[in-house]
């Protein structure tokens, strides 16, 4: 099936790319969503099986694949709205949809790969597709954003490759040459620690470009700022999850070696610095879209802190990653409506949103509650568990510092959001406002409600899948 899926998606990408007819483009996109869901349902029925040697439907892969398929539907709807509101030429529209489908496919298949090199290849394909999306508007700033994204991702992907080379050197000591995760888990005790250490450093640094963690976080910020918001939603949610998968699968290998503690320290430092950077920028930033992007850095910092703390933190990290994907994509989808009204990204020029778009303002308010992890947001549960894991790991000082940083983030975030919602904007002429249908916000409500439901009342199967994803980790 995965072969059919890949071939189908590839044909759709080609079809979208060469075709300039609007109706055929939209039907191809609809056909892809159908294919994506067929594949997702198929994968649920073939849980724990392996296909084409390099892809297996394991619990982590399935969880994230379902998340991706859920986010893909609103992404398609909002892309349609976006393109209809920006009547560009047919060529850019075709490239946009082709790149969107390519990104979704590569990300989904990247989750399922059980071989480090295959994960690497699909991560590289996502860079290719994402750069086409970021360059959508063909402006000077879009070009700058694309250039920075491409260059940093190219360097990062090279780092991951160097890491894989060192990993192979480490594996030769175990007398094996199979770089599949299964074999790595089986041989983890025999891996050479020196090369493994180097390999982890390189692979971790490489994947931080996708995950949005210090040191390589900058590329993602520019990318999410310049890409059209529906594409930005994917970059800020499902693509970040691909970075998480890359790091997490390899982390499981290293966690079963004596380097476990050392790896935790490395991850912990990067995660804490990410939180710090996110705080500094969120206090300073006046560009709304970039503020949302920095909020992503904050959440990924928390996720990785959970991983570094261990225990219940592993469970919380995966829960957080999934819920964050729902919440953050909803925020980015909603952003487009704000831009359509104000034609500006600066917080100074946006205001009184309740007056101009009540439904959208409610989404923004709910999104604020969700992203800042206040109850009843689902993220509250996962963040609480992450704090608990830090407490249980005797990292009280880190916990206090994290709580302080989070307070500042909530203050900065809240200040800006409430300004947008209630305070009148500077120099804004409201005589000629575009009509925005409240129905356009329905997908955001569903995504936000989904995050609340999964956080507060998770179905037993969902909990079971998360538990199975962290089964191989030492507790």
């Amino acid at each position, binding site marked *: 099936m995965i072969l059919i899926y890949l071939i189908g998606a590839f044909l759709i990408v080609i079809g979208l790319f060469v075709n300039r007819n609007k109706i055929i483009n939209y039907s191809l996109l609809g056909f892809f969503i159908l294919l994506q869901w067929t594949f997702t349902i198929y994968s649920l029925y073939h849980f724990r099986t392996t296909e084409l040697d390099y892809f297996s439907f394991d619990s982590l892969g399935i969880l994230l694949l379902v998340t991706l398929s859920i986010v893909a539907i609103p992404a398609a709807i909002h892309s349609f709205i976006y393109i209809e509101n920006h009547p560009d030429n047919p060529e850019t529209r075709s490239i946009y949809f082709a790149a969107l489908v390519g990104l979704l496919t590569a990300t989904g298949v990247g989750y399922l790969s059980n071989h480090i090199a295959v994960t690497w290849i699909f991560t590289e394909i996502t860079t290719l597709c994402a750069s086409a999306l970021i360059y959508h508007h063909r402006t000077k700033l879009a070009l*700058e954003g694309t*250039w920075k994204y491409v260059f940093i991702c190219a360097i990062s992907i090279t780092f991951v490759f160097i890491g894989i080379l060192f990993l192979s050197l480490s594996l*030769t000591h175990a007398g094996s040459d199979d770089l599949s995760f299964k074999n790595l888990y089986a041989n983890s005790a025999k891996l050479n620690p*020196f090369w493994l250490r180097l390999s982890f450093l390189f692979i971790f640094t490489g994947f931080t470009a996708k995950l949005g963690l210090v040191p390589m976080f900058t590329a993602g910020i520019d990318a999410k700022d310049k890409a059209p918001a529906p594409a930005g939603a994917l970059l800020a949610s499902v693509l970040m999850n691909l970075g998480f998968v890359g790091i997490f699968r390899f982390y499981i290998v290293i966690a079963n070696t004596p380097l476990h503690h050392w790896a935790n320290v490395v991850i912990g430092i990067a995660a804490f610095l990410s939180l710090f950077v996110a705080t500094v920028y969120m206090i300073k930033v006046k560009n709304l879209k970039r503020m949302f992007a920095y909020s992503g850095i904050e959440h990924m910092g928390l996720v990785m802190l959970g991983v570094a703390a261990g225990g219940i933190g592993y469970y919380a990290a995966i829960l957080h990653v999934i819920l964050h994907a729902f919440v953050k994509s909803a925020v980015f989808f909603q952003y487009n409506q704000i831009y359509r009204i104000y034609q500006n990204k600066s917080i100074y020029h946006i205001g009184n949103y309740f007056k101009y778009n009540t439904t959208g303002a409610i989404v923004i308010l709910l999104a604020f509650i969700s992203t800042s992890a206040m109850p009843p947001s689902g993220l509250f549960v996962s963040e609480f568990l992450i704090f608990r894991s830090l407490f249980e790991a005797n990292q009280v000082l880190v916990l206090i510092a994290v709580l302080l940083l989070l307070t500042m983030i909530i203050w900065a975030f809240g200040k800006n959001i409430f300004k947008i919602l209630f305070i009148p904007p500077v120099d804004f002429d409201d005589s000629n406002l575009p009509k925005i249908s409240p129905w356009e916000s329905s997908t955001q409500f569903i995504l936000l409600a989904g995050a609340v439901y999964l956080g507060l009342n998770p179905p037993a199967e969902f909990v079971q899948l998360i538990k199975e994803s962290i089964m191989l980790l030492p507790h």
Partner: protein
Amino acid sequence: MIHVFLIIFLISLFYMAIANRMLTYIRVIALQGVLLFFVVFLQLKEISTLNLVLILLETIIFKSLAVPMFLRYILKRNKITREAEPFLPNFVSLIIITVIVVVTILLSHSIKDVNLDKIFFVVALSTLFTGLYFIASRRKIITHVMGYLVIENGVFVLSLAVGNEMPMLVNLGIMLDIFASVLILGIFLNKIGDVFKEVDVDQLTNLKDY
């Protein structure tokens, strides 16, 4: 014999440090491609003939012909001036690269591993760091691309060092090469000249938090 080629490869880095003109950089990158061709030919013995032929073709056609020709075309098309415009004087660059090579030699000697070919390791690491140094110390975007190509060559040498047992890794290295080069060069370096009048990194500072 392999070692001779690798040492010439290392010397090419020193030459690049003191080179002033863009065309010289392109020539050095082409030369590195040719050197890699010979190294592949002599080093990879345990892989299938078809695979070997593919890798050889990639090094000679892609690394030493296509990419340098394309870079030259970009220079002409975007009317980029010939000077490389480094931030630091050439003499300082030469010293820094010497330091890099010495440090990597010391580093590789501290590693006790029978599976590791020391010369490959030294050349690969020095090339990697030199590439990073070029990116950090040159002003033009196109020189950054060249720095990146140098890094790729370094990674390729590293993959050759382990590639005898795992040919898959060499193939992956080539994939990285083609992928990233297509990405960086093909898609839009072409267009950078149209949008930006001067292709300096100083121009790329508009995207920031205000």
